[in-house]
């Protein structure tokens, strides 16, 4: 049973490795942002598997937090790519 969780951890780390490759090499900025988002999601998965392995439920809030942060980061980056600024000011510009 525990072997399965270790295999899952190894696979997730492999996935994160692929994403890091994409972040470093990615031809466009959008690729990098997507890969960073996916790294965040994978980290949430690693935290879930670790909390099963360590038999504690105190890590489970972290998953929600990581998910929210990954989404906010991606949304902000998308806005930055499209408009050039993250927070727009109204008025003369």
């Amino acid at each position: 049973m525990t072997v399965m969780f270790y295999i899952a951890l190894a696979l997730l780390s492999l996935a994160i490795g692929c994403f890091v490759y994409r972040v470093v090499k990615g031809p466009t900025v959008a690729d990098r942002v997507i890969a960073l988002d996916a790294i965040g999601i994978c980290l949430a998965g690693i935290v879930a598997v670790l909390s099963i392995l360590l038999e504690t439920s105190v890590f489970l809030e972290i998953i929600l937090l990581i998910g929210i942060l990954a989404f906010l980061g991606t949304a902000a980056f998308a806005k930055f790519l499209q408009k050039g600024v993250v927070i727009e000011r109204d008025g003369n510009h």
Partner: protein
Amino acid sequence: MAGALLTLISAIGVLRLPDVYTRSHAISKSTTLGMIFILMGTLFYFWLKHDHFNSRLLLAIVFLFLTSPVSAHLISRAAYYSGVRPWEGTVRDDLAERRENRTKSAK
């Protein structure tokens, strides 16, 4: 648990990353599915083994399910309008006409 098996799906989806827009597609779908299965596995593990139903985990599942298509769409749209060309094998480009109009009106 079933989560371990479905991590494999997300890892494969990650490994194959074909091209720019298809890559976003592959990443958003497969990692979301894999993560949702892992989180479900964790939820049921704590529920059945320790008799401890964790509502925050459920909230995380719902949040991930809602936001990952949104973020994929946002980033693809931003990439398109910031001038990333699609792969040469793309068959049709529905947004091209609209983009032409935009650039014309901007001038």
